[in-house]
């Protein structure tokens, strides 16, 4: 008479248990790898992140020196009407005309400043106005010669109550502007200053070398 094989069933159970654990581990590892792939993709800076414009910060009244141009914001006017030199009649708007009086000097070669906007505190971005006849006289239509300062205005249409906390952004091009300098100037307008800046008609001066 032989004894029953006592050790066989526990051994089989242990093998099965190990198999189940391994499967669970495999599923877990696959999930970890998938999450890691997606996470790494999202963390990796894209070309757009690496090559976005470089902000050069400044303040109102002082020249912001970017590698290719210097920009000094001198004054600000707000109005419902805009008088464009050599163009009639006065223009009206659904919001307000914000006229930024500024001096620009190119430092290396002749340039244009085509990309102008004001970014409000809530993130809303208002592009520079392009009313008929405006680009003949404002700073976006002017060619700045190296080392010759030019005086003129940028015009943006936006509600005046969005000005507190807003930032003027100026750069050369709207596209293909990878890593190019962007002059970024907080306009520093307080809510109680809005009435003082408001005019019946904003009269802009034509851009000219000063």
């Amino acid at each position: 008479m032989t004894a029953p094989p006592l050790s066989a069933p526990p051994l089989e159970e242990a093998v099965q248990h190990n198999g189940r654990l391994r499967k669970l581990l495999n599923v877990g590892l696959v999930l970890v790898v998938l999450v890691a792939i997606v996470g790494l993709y999202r963390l990796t800076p894209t070309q757009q992140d690496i090559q976005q414009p470089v902000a050069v910060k400044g303040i109102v009244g002082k020249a912001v020196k970017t590698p290719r141009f210097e920009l000094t914001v001198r004054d600000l006017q707000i109005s419902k009407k805009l008088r464009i030199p050599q163009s009639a009649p006065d223009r009206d708007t659904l919001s307000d005309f914000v006229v930024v009086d500024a001096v620009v000097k190119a430092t290396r070669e002749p340039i244009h400043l085509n990309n102008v906007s004001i970014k409000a505190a809530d993130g809303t971005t208002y592009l520079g106005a392009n009313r008929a006849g405006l680009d003949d006289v404002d700073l976006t239509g002017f060619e700045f010669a190296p080392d010759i300062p030019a005086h003129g205005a940028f015009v943006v249409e936006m509600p005046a109550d969005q000005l507190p906390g807003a930032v003027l952004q100026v750069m050369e091009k709207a596209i293909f502007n990878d890593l190019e300098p962007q002059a970024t100037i907080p306009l520093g307008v307080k809510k109680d200053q809005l009435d003082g800046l408001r005019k019946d008609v904003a009269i802009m001066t034509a851009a000219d070398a000063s």
Partner: protein
Amino acid sequence: MQEPTGSGDREELPALQDIKVRGRSLKTWGIGTAVLLLVISAAFGGLKKAGDETPQVDSGTAIDAGQFEVTIQRVVAVKDLKPLFQPDEGGALIAVVTKLKVTDDTGVTPPSDLVRLIGVPGIKDTDRPIGTTNIRDGTGNPVLTPEQGEDVAYVWKLPKATELPTEVKLSVQHYEHIDDSLLDHHEKWSPDKLAAESSVKVKDSTK
């Protein structure tokens, strides 16, 4: 003498339903694969509701075009819109006047694929307008201020010897805001479907 039948030499093939691959039947593998494909397609939007028919909208009704709110106001045929637009010799211009409001937080100029004329003789359904202008002061391709509804006209050329249509059908493009995809985190607007179609009577101002 016994004739060789040959059947005894052949190996008996198992029936299809009895074939097993790695211990599982073909049926199990088939169902598994189908479920896997469904799950993958669902992950990429395969279970989203199929597009409804394009709504028909009357002029004067605001249309949600995603990045814009568009209200078709009128369609006018004119001799010219100097100095911005002039027709070819003997032709005319047809303008779709809209109230256009940017609902996004960034100002833009009106996209040229927003409005299309459908079935107008002399203009292909895919033709972009020759340009846009605001009604306020005749600015070409005007910059729009977010949340301000500006009157903007989309203008096409009607060739010579084309009879002026009395009514036109037009479509308005919808733009989808892409916040973020699985692997990308850049926001953008891209055209996806037609927001609406509309039939509008043409006002003849050529005479």
